[in-house]
């Protein structure tokens, strides 16, 4: 049972550590962007935001502090 539990946590940890984490600034940017982007264009929102966020440096681990 112990080994099963260990493996299960490692799987969760691997997924969580791979997931992108966004700064508060980024989350605000996303909320604001959603207000102005019409629904048909929403599928492209994530890609556009990723392009905008990188130079702004808002996709960052700073939220981890």
């Amino acid at each position, binding site marked *: *049972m*112990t080994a099963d*539990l260990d493996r299960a946590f490692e799987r*969760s*940890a691997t997924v*969580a550590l791979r997931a992108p984490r966004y700064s508060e600034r980024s989350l605000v940017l996303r909320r604001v962007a959603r207000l102005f982007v019409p629904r048909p264009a929403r599928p492209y929102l994530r890609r556009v935001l990723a392009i905008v966020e990188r130079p702004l440096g808002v996709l960052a681990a700073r*939220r*981890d*502090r």
Partner: protein
Amino acid sequence: MNPTGPGVAPGRPARIDQVIPSIIEHDAVSNHTFVAQILLREMGFVSEIYASIIGPGCAGRVHPLDELPMVEDGSQWILYQCSIGGPTGDVVARHPGRKLLDYHNITPAPLVERWLPPLGEESRLGRRQLQQLAPLVPFAIARSAYNAAELDENGFGRTTVVPLLGDGDALERSPDPVALRRLISLKEAGGADWLFVGQIAPHKAQHDVVKAFACYRRVYDRDARLHLVGREMGSAYIDALRRFAVALGLKDAVSLPGSVSAGALVAYYEAATVFVCLSDHEGFCAPIVESMARGVPVVAYAAAAVPETVGDAGVLVPDKSPVLVASAVHRVLTEPTARDDLIAAGRARAARFTPDIAAAAFRQAIEAALRSP
């Protein structure tokens, strides 16, 4: 670091200012610092708090570190609340005043760096700074004998142990009625309520508590609940914890309410059947004492300062095997008199760490520092 030496010759200073890397509400080290300020002022010193990072709930009570006065005539001493590395340690080392260190311990980097790489770096820096501060600090205060031993290893000459300072009212207040009602209503479905209180952080090992809890539910009590109270340190670890609980089918049984008010915290202690601590590293572990004071039996992993805090008033497990922890909890909750005996022993143990006793020890330590050559 550019250190300035142990400071100007001893004598009674006009002020003892405290320096701390970061300060935030609902945090044991921060609360200790605020209580220390009250005690220092009662002892007749001017005393302000200076921090690099001033968190929510502390504005107006704490000054930015760059406003720290640099008085060179010996009338200002510095009490450094040390729990992590950073620029604060360098500022203390450069300060011309006499330096005292209050050591809460520094979480070892290997326990956190996988989840929070910057914190790992700060931890390593903190331990380097500790060694650099040793010859500059004639007197140090440690939260536990475990912490004092670390200071000795790092070359600190004189150390004394002072328990964590606390707000006398914090745990004597009534439980938040709304929170208590909600927690009591959960009990109607039956099952034990496991509780752990502390930052949601990898070195506090809440994932090991979840493993033991999963085992306990499977073997002993399918209706049991687990409450992991505390603010998250970073988002990755808590994310993993949530995913883990879902993967084990425990989404509804494991709650992560975050940081809660003092009244709500009392409600959690009131509703808890057992407090389970499987931390890999604790310099003292105030929630263990809080549990004992509120009559909650403690089962804890014997690591770092935990055995010293628990004493003979809780069940200490030598390893974190989920089966072992689950069976220890089961015995505590089902063996006739075991629970009552542990509660009685816990209350007696907690009485050794009351705010009054800790405050008296702190005053004695400061008086000893004043006499120290």
